[in-house]
């Protein structure tokens, strides 16, 4: 219903066939996936059964075989959060197409149709991933999401892009390997494949091992923790729309992986696995904070700052007894604000100036006060200084850290929080460096910004951003009031 409503609204508002075609296709894809899961359960189950019988025939017990409904999880993930994630995936995709249409229509859509195909496959994979509750389906969705990303990077046809694609490929394959390992451990220990059933098994040692592997894998895939090294070269090499896709939209479904943990690992607070994960997160945050100090490329700066922000969210999540809502709201708000930064970035690149280095920014002060205003507001919103909404959720995440492990003031948590805030300060520093160069530095060439990106287009952008935000807002209210 949500998709149909979106299609209708979009068609009413803009009356363009092209987008309408896309969204009809997406909604039908989603419906197909739903129907596929609901109606043809037994068929799929038989295929899975066969495959698993061939692979794990020695270690399976007969009870699992006799009940095919266990294989393809009967109930979809867990209610509200899954619905939010689905909705977010769709709305992010929607806004992404919306943005690309206004700036990159000709380049992106008409010249290279394979990119559209890749994006469709990626959306399919993301939705499949988000609506699954089952080890196999999760893995399928993950690979469906990762492969088109790889092709999108590789299609840039530059040396840097091919190198970046290779890097991304190696890292994501490594992540997939770890995912499979963790699934194998989970399956051997529990004999189950549905995430809902793992709660029943509290074998501490092997469950913690699985948890470690699972988290490490998704940290690699997200580019969080000390495994962020693929992100800066990839961000730097690709074109702007692909950059936006990789840095925001493809991360939404991956966050679902950490929400899955709420079910599996809820009974294992204060375990050594969690300490290991938190150590990795803090290490990664501090490493990228150190790298940020000497960085001058805007895209690389955005890669490092996203690492730091995800680190804060994830630390709050792990140490705060898996508080899903704060984590989700924080990360989603961060991603939405990221989009606003990327809009600014798109405007920068709109007339092929390719201003990627901080030192090339400048000359806005006299020429264009609007450019200064948009830059500064979007960066300040993204950095999460106090009156911005992100700040409140960041503070809640930090409160989670200090509150851990018991409900009294904790010195270790206090110092962890201060370490993480130092990392966050270095991200403030990088943002303020950009702001300083934009609003003060003089340049030799006079940039004619906003020549191609007219004011109308900016207004459309703002409309898109506000509508996305409002839709998320109303959806969340509707969910929680029911």
């Amino acid at each position, binding site marked *: 219903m949500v998709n149909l409503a979106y299609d209708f609204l979009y068609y009413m508002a803009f009356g363009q066939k092209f987008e309408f075609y896309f969204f009809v296709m997406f909604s039908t894809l989603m419906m197909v996936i739903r129907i596929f899961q609901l109606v043809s359960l037994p068929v799929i189950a038989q295929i899975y059964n066969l495959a698993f019988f061939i692979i794990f025939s020695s270690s399976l017990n007969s009870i699992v075989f006799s009940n095919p409904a266990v294989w393809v999880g009967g109930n979809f993930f867990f209610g509200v959060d899954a619905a939010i994630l689905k909705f977010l995936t769709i709305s992010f995709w929607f806004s992404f197409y919306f943005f690309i249409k206004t700036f990159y229509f000709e380049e992106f859509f008409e010249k290279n149709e394979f990119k559209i195909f890749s994006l469709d496959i990626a959306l399919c994979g993301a939705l499949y991933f988000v609506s699954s509750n089952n080890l196999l389906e999760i893995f399928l969705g993950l690979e469906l999401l990762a492969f088109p990303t790889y092709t999108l990077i590789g299609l840039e046809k530059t040396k840097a892009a091919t190198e970046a694609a290779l890097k991304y490929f190696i890292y994501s394959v490594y992540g997939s390997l770890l995912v499979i390992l963790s699934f194998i451990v989970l399956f051997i220990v529990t004999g189950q494949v549905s995430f809902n059933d793992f709660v029943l098994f509290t074998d501490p040692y092997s469950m913690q091992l699985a948890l470690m592997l699972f988290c490490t894998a998704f940290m690699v895939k997200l580019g969080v923790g000390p495994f962020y090294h693929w992100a800066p070269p990839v961000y730097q090499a690709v074109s702007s729309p692909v950059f936006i896709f990789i840095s925001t939209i493809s991360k939404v479904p991956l966050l679902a992986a950490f929400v899955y943990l709420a079910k599996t690992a809820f009974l294992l607070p204060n375990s050594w696995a969690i300490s290991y994960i938190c150590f990795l997160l803090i290490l990664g945050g501090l490493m990228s904070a150190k790298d940020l100090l000497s960085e001058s490329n805007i895209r690389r700066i955005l890669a490092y700052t996203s690492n730091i922000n995800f680190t804060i969210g994830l630390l709050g999540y792990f140490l705060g007894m898996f*508080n899903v*809502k*704060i984590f989700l*709201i924080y990360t989603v708000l961060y991603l939405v604000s990221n989009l606003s930064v990327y809009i600014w970035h798109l405007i920068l690149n709109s007339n092929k100036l390719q201003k990627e280095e901080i030192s090339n920014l400048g000359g806005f*002060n*006299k020429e264009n*006060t609007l450019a*200064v*205003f948009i830059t*500064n507001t979007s960066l*300040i919103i993204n950095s999460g*200084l*106090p*009156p911005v*909404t992100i*700040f*409140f959720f960041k*503070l*809640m*995440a*930090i*409160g*989670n*850290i*200090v*509150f851990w492990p018991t*409900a*009294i*003031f904790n010195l270790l948590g*206090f110092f962890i*929080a*201060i370490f993480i*805030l*130092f990392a966050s*300060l270095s991200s*403030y*520093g990088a943002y*303020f460096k950009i*702001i*300083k160069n934009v*609003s*003060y530095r003089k340049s030799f060439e006079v940039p004619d910004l906003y020549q191609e990106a007219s004011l109308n287009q900016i207004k459309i952008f703002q409309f898109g951003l506000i509508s996305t935000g409002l839709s998320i*807002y109303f959806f*969340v*209210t509707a969910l*929680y*009031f029911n």
Partner: protein
Amino acid sequence: MKKINFSFSSADIFNPLFFIVFGLVLLTSLTSYFGVFNSTNFFFNILQSTFFSEQVHSEIIYNFTSILVNSPYYNTSGLLISILTSYLYFVIALYYNPIRNNIVSFQLFVFFIIVSEVSLYFTFLTSNFFIFYSLFEFILVPFYFIVLIWGSRPNKLSASFRLVFFTLVFSLPLTTLMGFNLYNNYFSFNFEMLFPTLAANHIILQIFFYFSCFLAFAVKIPLFPAHVWLPEAHGEAPTFGSVLLAGILLKLGGYGFYQVFYEFSNVIFNMQIVNLFSIVYVISLLTIFYSNIIVFNQLDIKKTIAYYSIGHMGFVTLGLISSNQEAMIGSIIIMLSHGLSAAGLFFCVGYIYEQSHSRSIIAFRGLATSAPYLAIIFFLFVCANISFPGTSNFIGEQMVLIGLAKISPEFTFLPMIGVLLNGFSTFLFYAKIVFGEFKISNSFVRDLNYNQIFCFFAIFIPLTLMGFYPEIIIKYF
């Protein structure tokens, strides 16, 4: 003497800057009169009802409304400082109105003026510690841009960076504690309930709270080791920027000290656990002496006045830590009168710099012959700066010293030497610039016009009013 134009015409009254600032002054005075400064509540109520309804309340642990409630209550000092804020913005609007065509990017100027003004009102009139803290950090953003865009020397880059990051780094412990207290059921963010609820917590948490608040506010005031950002920022800011920084931004720290320490120091005194009074006393004294001694070596006129501000703020912390009412009222009077006198001094010095494009003390001799009106007005503000009897600075410092003598008479001895040092150094500074033989080789400063003289008297009259009749402030406490 040059020809003086009366540049303040009736057409100028209706320019945007003047109009907007005057409207804001009216609005805030009305809202504070009726005590309905409650609009922040609206936003947070919506936030609470959407994200954290009753259904998920048990998971989130805490109650959002109880944290972010903003009652119509306001205290006298906050109201007084907000009146000072509106008055200074009004004077700035008057001063810059005739020369608004000379200001670079005037729209941005108006924008940042309004953003900073509104957030300062919210900061001083809220009864909620959380909102106070949020805006306390947010206020850096408009001032960052004010220093960056309208500053005049290349050194402004590092100065603006210091202005932001000193405060951010030193408020890190407070940030973490704020995050912790969101989940702490035995903690209220309302200023009225802050200490009763804090007393229910563990003593270690109380001491952590004390020190993190101390760090955050000591940078803003600033106290001795953390003062490094201030002379830079004041020196590199434009005239209106340094007026606002000295006039109001330092009072944020003072107001925070008042809200957190005036009552809390009572608790600590009664408990006799740690003698925190002595620590703050020593740091304040160090601040006073350091700032008044280092001035003898200063060559930059703006930095000199910035150091005088640091010295005065040392008296404010002395008064607020001594936990009796005389000293508290004294420090609030110091804050108000320093807001006016430092603003006047910065206007004078800024005018001198705009005329001569030099900040070095050596470049000026004999201003009294070339610009007599300026010399007279400068002298009035110098008198206010050394807390001459008849200005309200005198009343404030005397009340602080009386309050200190109530604790123990020995405590008043060293601050009194600080007062003497301040007077000596300020008169020396004034004499170096204004008196002496005027030569052609010296920088030339044109005299003030009527509009500027009017603005300077608008600043000076409240100082004398409070100096001769301090009842108008004291009776509200």
